[in-house]
């Protein structure tokens, strides 16, 4: 078996032009597919940045909420109601809202302000600089050092700014797991200061963050919250909901899907076409091999090997290229949101397998049909 694979390998690789065209087709398709899906995965993760960063187990919200960014304030009594549900260990309010900051040099910059519950500071970020206690100090804010940090002019502890004619002071620099999607920097402060600085509507709670006593209580909590006319979602469910919104309610998902399908079709046509020509051009040779005494099965193995070899090589190059480009892009564009996830890789791999399978199916059929007699007759 090894010998015929060696021959198959040489027939493929020594045909430089076709081999290059085959690789190009597959590499291109893999690159596009992974790039598209990675961008999408990046966007999805970022769209749930607040949920990921705050890290609460259960989020209580208005049922009409579609994304974490567009909050619908909850009345205060919901907090008491939720606190009185038996399985709830504790429940705290969270404020999340937009604000316009005036930076020291006079530049206005919009920002996302997160107000943490004053008593528990539940959902606080990890500080790189400063002390979390300082969040209670006068005018105190903590800046998040994510990809948007530079828009705050890279403040140090002690830096000042204005927010609706209030003075704000940076008392700490934090880092979080995920940057947001909307290109605005994030500042943490206390719930009460957030309300004080930012003009608010009648209701002020953006979300209720709930910790259940045990995991078994989650179902009951969800049910009770629902009975009260609100929605309780676990962290994963909320992320899922936000992702679904971007996937299905915005053009983003559809466009990504179309691009992925297009790259698949391009890859399939370039590689399929080239592989077909390759097989056709070698058809006589396969016929000669058959006449000499190669069995049909051995010819199939040769073709499958060639298809698999070129596909896997193309896949490898495509993945490598994608990783390289994303890495380079990040060097220059800190906002570049693309993550190569395991499922992206698997998806692209499956598509490559399909491309290889379709291409070799056509080749195999051709090769099995050749009559050595026709080769013999010339």
């Amino acid at each position: 078996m090894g010998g015929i694979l060696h021959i198959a390998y040489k027939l493929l690789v020594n045909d430089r032009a076709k081999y290059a065209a085959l690789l190009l087709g597959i590499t291109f398709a893999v690159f596009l597919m992974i790039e598209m899906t990675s961008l999408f995965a990046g966007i999805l993760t970022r769209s749930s940045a607040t949920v990921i960063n705050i890290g609460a187990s259960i989020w209580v919200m208005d049922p009409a909420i579609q994304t974490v960014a567009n909050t619908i304030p909850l009345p205060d009594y919901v907090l008491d109601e939720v606190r009185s549900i038996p399985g709830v260990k504790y429940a705290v309010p969270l404020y999340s809202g937009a604000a316009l900051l005036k930076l020291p040099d006079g530049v206005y910059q919009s920002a996302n302000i997160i107000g943490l519950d004053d008593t528990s500071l539940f959902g606080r970020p990890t500080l790189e600089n400063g002390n979390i206690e300082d969040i209670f100090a006068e005018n105190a804010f903590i800046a998040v050092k994510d990809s948007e940090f530079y828009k705050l002019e890279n403040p140090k502890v002690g830096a000042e700014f204005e927010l609706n004619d209030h003075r704000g002071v940076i008392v700490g620099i934090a880092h979080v797991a995920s940057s947001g999607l909307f290109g605005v920097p994030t500042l943490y402060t206390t719930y009460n200061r957030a309300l004080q600085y930012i003009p608010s509507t009648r209701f002020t709670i953006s979300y209720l963050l709930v910790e259940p006593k045990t995991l078994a209580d989650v179902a009951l909590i969800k049910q009770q919250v629902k009975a009260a006319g609100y929605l309780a979602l676990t962290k994963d469910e909320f992320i899922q909901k936000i992702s679904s919104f971007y996937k299905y309610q915005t053009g983003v998902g559809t466009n990504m899907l179309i691009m992925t399908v297009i790259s698949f079709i391009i890859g399939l046509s370039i590689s399929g076409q080239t592989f077909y020509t390759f097989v056709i051009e070698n058809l006589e040779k396969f016929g000669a091999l058959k006449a000499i005494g190669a069995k049909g099965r051995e010819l199939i193995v040769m073709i499958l090997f060639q298809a698999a070899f070129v596909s896997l090589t193309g896949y490898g190059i495509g993945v490598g290229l994608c990783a390289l480009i994303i890495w380079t892009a990040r060097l220059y564009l800190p906002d570049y949101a693309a993550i190569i996830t395991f499922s992206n890789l698997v998806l692209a791999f499956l598509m490559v397998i399909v491309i290889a399978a379709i291409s070799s199916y056509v080749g195999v059929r051709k090769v099995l049909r050749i009559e050595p007699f026709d080769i013999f007759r010339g």
Partner: protein
Amino acid sequence: MARTAIEAVGLNKWFGDGEVKTHAVKDVSFEAYLGEILYVVGPSGSGKTTMLSMISGILRPNSGTVKIEGSEIWSLTNDALADFRLHKIGFVFQDFHLFPRLTTAENVAIPLILQKRAWDEALKEAEVDLEVVGLKDRAQLPPVKLSGGEQQRVAIARAIVSRPDILILDEPTASLDGDSGRNIVKFVREHILSDQRCIVIVTHDSRIYEFADRIVKMEDGKMMGIERENLNAQ
């Protein structure tokens, strides 16, 4: 008396049906022996290639039997038939069918590789046979770099590399100029023929008749009997 290599009895082959039916080979019977070169001559379209394909296990006859060294081949399964061709028959195709992407030595080694011999070993043996046909120094070149006559010799080296008892050459001189054609067949006569081997050559090139032991003629699908016998009787 020499041993019988090929025994064909009542071979018939037709193509198509009704209006377009061509009866390409009609009731052909003959024998060929180890140690001889048998020529099959006749005009184009007389059924020579068809007949050759039937005795070498490539094309199934509509009726008749073929025995190679005493065993009937057309009762074999397809796989067994492939193995039979691989081990017993060497082919030199009219237009060579060499692989342009492989080296000359690799081309020659193909039958051994199909026999599942180790790659290096197969190449070594191929080079021995390239030496036999006088092309040792061309072993690493692709066949397209060789002249027509040299390519023909590569094809012969490939046909004999597995030491087949029967060697089939279909119009070996057709794509060569007169001299190289003659030289090739002379070479086959002098170096490739042995007591253990039967060589069947299809040709209509009368300039090479002198290298045949016997010549049979085909016309319109029928074998017209022996044209000449024991030209080179030892």
